[in-house]
Each structure stands twice: as structure tokens, then as C-alpha cells.
């Protein structure tokens, strides 16, 4: 249970429960609450709703800003103990509190989104009230935004669990009370899930639970108050990829049965005005440097994990100069499948080393993707990714073989 709870309206039940995880978000939480409140008022006026701040014991006045934001729906404040950080802790508090409220729909929205608007709430919550199990947003993204999703998460989850969810690692989602029951009895919960791994954990379990998944088109980019994608990227990479690999062990009996993939339903398609993604600058020389340096640094780990065929391929790729650099999807699929299989048999320390060694290979894949798609439109780059996903799906028998 949460270390601290404040429930000034003594709320004991609600149809819709919206959680806002936070840590020192005094500058943005009030606007987020206001927009959520407007969305609930406008689109679900006849339902009982409650907004819950899921805080990490912020010291900057987040709690006060949360309660003082304008709006009509009641609020609850939950916090972890002082010093306990991480979104996963907040989400766990959310599960436990929400279960007491017997909701019909649950949603989580990040506290620091600068451009959230009321219809985001409609798009997230609406499909759950109509019978969906999990709703994952679909934001407007540039081809080089979220390459971890495009090059690892999407192809891997799609080929494993058979459902095409394009942005599975976003921090906002909605889910049904049935799925809440599953989340309350987690098959895996580790330090990574307490932190950056929580978002992929949520989607991955939804996919393996075989609930109807809907992607909600938001028509906009998601703009965070502070955004430095490379800050803590190493930790994020390890926790997200680590969470997927851990869950592969749990859901092995499920994913071995999956063949090819299916689309999801889509909501929010009535949005007529959509934003154009902003360009993302990529420093390809720096990527190349980090790729080659990383290979040198983790040579021992790579040779322990991968067979001679993969090592030869990696050497071949590393020998290419920047101008001719290419890292084929087929090799990448083999590397990820081999890594996942090896991970399942490793100690905690070995797992950590493997994920460290995987990062430079991923940077090499990003470099190759950028070079192949630099002249493509966002739409063409999407088609390129779709074709690469098919390579993962075609190679599904390989992961089944190497896993056993």
C-alpha cells in the first residue's frame, strides 16, 4: 500500500479512475489535472470519476499544486515513502488503490505532458468503456524519434505476441478492471519494472493476456516539459529490453504458439487536424564511433553469447566505413533472438553484462536505419519498418528453436 494517502472527499468508488504519476512536477501537474478534468467533464459527464496523483514524495509542492488545480472531480493523493522513487512504485500504488474503487475503466497519464488536451482522455478511456482491455496511444512521431521502439520493441513484441502495437512503450495508457486483476498478481516484478521498465511491462502483459487491444490515434506529438532523450538512456535501454526478455520467460508457452501477427482496432480516427512531426537530429558519426568502441569494449561478452556465425557478421559490419555502413534486419533479428535465449539462462550479473553489450549493437542498427531511410518520408520509413517486422515474423521458428 501507499506510504501516505490523502482522500479529502472520502471517495470509496468510481467508474473512471485516472492516475498521474509524478516526482517534483509542480510546474506541470496542475495543467495536466485541469485537462484531465475537462476531458472527463466533456466526454463522460454522467460517470463518477476520480483523479489520483501517484507521487514519489515530491518536495517541490506537487501535492499542493495537484489539489489546487481547477476542476470538479474529486482527487486522491498517494505517495511512496521518502526516498522511494520510480514510476513503477507509483503504478503499483495505483493498482492497489484503484482495486478498492471498483472502476469500469482506468487510465494513466504522465504529469509532464505540455500539450495534453481533453480529447486525449476520450481517446484513452472511451474504448475501455466499450469493451477493450488495453488502450495504447499512437502519437505523431518523426522517423528518428523513439528508435528503441521502432527497432527493438515493435518488431520483437509483434513477432512474439502476434499483435501490431506500434508505440508499446509510451507512458500513457488505459486498461480494464479485468486487466487490473492480472496486474495485481504480477508474474515478474523487479527493480527495472519499478523504474523505466513499467510502461513496457504494462503493454507486454496486456498482449500476453489476450485482451482486445486498441491503439488510440492522438493526432499530435507528445511534448514533455523537459526532454533529453539521451539522459539516462543506458539505464532505460537495459530496463526496457530486460523487461521484455524477462517476460519472454514467463510467457514462453504463449508466444511459441503465435504465428504471424494481427492488427489492432483503432480509435480517434475522427481527428481531422494532425500535427507534422518535428525533425530529429541524429549524429551518425557519433553513432558509428559508439558502435565500434562498444564492440571493442564488450568483445568478451559478445563472444560468450553469440555463435561464430553471428560474430563473423558483426565483424563484417564493424569493418564497414560510415559511408557504406549497413546492419541487416536479418542479422539483427538473429542477435535479439539469440540474446533473449541466452538471457533466460543467465545469472543477474550476466544478464546485466549482456544488456550492456547489446546497447552498442543497437546503436549500430540505429545508424543503419538512419542511412537507409534518410531520403524517405515518415510514411516511407514506416513501410520500411513494417517490412523489417516481417523479417522478424519470418524468423519466429528460429527463436523457438534456440530457446529450447
Amino acid at each position, binding site marked *: 500500500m501507499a506510504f501516505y494517502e490523502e482522500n479529502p472527499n472520502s471517495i470509496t468508488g468510481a467508474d473512471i479512475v485516472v492516475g498521474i504519476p509524478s516526482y517534483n512536477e509542480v510546474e506541470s501537474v496542475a495543467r495536466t489535472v485541469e485537462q484531465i478534468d475537462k476531458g472527463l467533464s466533456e466526454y463522460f459527464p454522467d460517470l463518477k470519476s476520480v483523479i489520483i496523483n501517484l507521487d514519489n514524495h515530491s518536495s517541490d509542492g506537487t501535492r499542493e499544486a495537484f489539489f489546487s488545480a481547477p476542476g470538479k472531480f474529486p482527487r486522491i493523493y498517494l505517495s511512496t515513502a521518502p526516498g522511494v522513487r520510480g514510476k513503477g512504485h507509483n503504478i503499483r500504488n495505483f493498482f492497489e488503490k484503484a482495486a478498492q474503487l471498483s472502476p469500469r475503466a482506468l487510465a494513466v497519464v504522465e504529469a509532464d505532458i505540455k500539450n495534453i488536451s481533453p480529447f486525449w482522455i476520450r481517446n484513452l478511456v472511451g474504448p475501455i468503456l466499450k469493451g477493450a482491455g488495453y488502450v495504447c496511444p499512437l502519437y505523431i512521431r518523426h522517423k528518428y524519434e523513439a528508435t528503441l521502439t521502432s527497432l527493438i520493441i515493435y518488431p520483437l513484441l509483434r513477432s512474439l505476441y*502476434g499483435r501490431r502495437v506500434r508505440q508499446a512503450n509510451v507512458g500513457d495508457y488505459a486498461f480494464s478492471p479485468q486487466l487490473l486483476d492480472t496486474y495485481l498478481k504480477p508474474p515478474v516484478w523487479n527493480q527495472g519494472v519499478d523504474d523505466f521498465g513499467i510502461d513496457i511491462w504494462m503493454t507486454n502483459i496486456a498482449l500476453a493476456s489476450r485482451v482486445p487491444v486498441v491503439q488510440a490515434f492522438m493526432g499530435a506529438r507528445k511534448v514533455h516539459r523537459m526532454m533529453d532523450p539521451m539522459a539516462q538512456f543506458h539505464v532505460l535501454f537495459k530496463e526496457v529490453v530486460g523487461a521484455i526478455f524477462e517476460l519472454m520467460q514467463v510467457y514462453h508457452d504463449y508466444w511459441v504458439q503465435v504465428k504471424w501477427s494481427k*492488427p489492432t482496432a*483503432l480509435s480517434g480516427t475522427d481527428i481531422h487536424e494532425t500535427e507534422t512531426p518535428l525533425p530529429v537530429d541524429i549524429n551518425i558519426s557519433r553513432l558509428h564511433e559508439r558502435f565500434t568502441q562498444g564492440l571493442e569494449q564488450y568483445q568478451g561478452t559478445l563472444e560468450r553469447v553469440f555463435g561464430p556465425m553471428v560474430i563473423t557478421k558483426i565483424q563484417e559490419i564493424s569493418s564497414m566505413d560510415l559511408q557504406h555502413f549497413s546492419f541487416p534486419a536479418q542479422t539483427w533479428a538473429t542477435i535479439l533472438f539469440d540474446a533473449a535465449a541466452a538471457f533466460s539462462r543467465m545469472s543477474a550479473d550476466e544478464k546485466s553484462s549482456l544488456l550492456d553489450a547489446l546497447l552498442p549493437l543497437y546503436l549500430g542498427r540505429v545508424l543503419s536505419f538512419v542511412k537507409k531511410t534518410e531520403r524517405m518520408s515518415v*510514411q516511407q520509413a514506416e513501410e520500411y519498418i513494417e517490412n523489417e517486422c516481417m523479417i522478424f515474423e519470418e524468423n519466429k521458428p528460429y527463436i523457438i528453436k534456440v530457446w529450447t
Partner: protein
Amino acid sequence: MPKILVVDDEEHIRLLYSEELKEAGYEVITAENGYKLLERIEEEKPDLVILDIKMVDYNGLDLLQDIRNQFYDLPVILSTAYDTFKEDMKSIAADFYVVKSFDLTELKKKIAMALETRLPG
């Protein structure tokens, strides 16, 4: 024998698909537009739908949304003369798409894949 529903307002396409797909071992039923399409699917219970995107009075991408909302896992293959439809976000709710052609090799391959797709129940 898997049952395929072909929805297309061009008669020659309905005839071509029917003939070739029957020869390939499928049962084929047809509809010339989207009128009462959901009721038809409910009644006939096809295993797969081939859906034209541009029909007189009907937008195949809107019909796709309706199908996906009511028949979540029913395979749908979009059939089109042009591939500009991919710019419309709604198209991602389709299992596959094919560009219309007299050579149905690609369509048959996509049908086989869609019918082979397996997710544990």
C-alpha cells in the same frame, strides 16, 4: 473450406476474384458495396474479407473501422488500385493490403498468411 467475402463495386473484379479463389480451394461470396455489410458478416460468418477501399458511396477504410470494432480478429485484406491510402491512419487496422492486379499471386499469398495467423485463445 475457408469462406472469403469479396466486397468490391467493380463487377469484373468480383468475377475475377471469385473464379480464381474458388479454383484455389476457397468458398467465395461477394458484395457489391458496404450496404448492411456488418449484418452480412454476422450472417455469413466469413473467415476473411477482401475489401475495396474506393467504392461508390462507400469508403472502405471507414468500413474497415466498423468491421474491426465489431469483429476484432476477422482478417481483412484491403484491395486497392492505388497505394496512396497508406497515408490514412485507418489503414493500419487491416491485416494486409494488395494492389489490384490480374495476377492474384500476391493476394493468394496474403490470404494464406492471414488464415494461417495464430494467436492462442
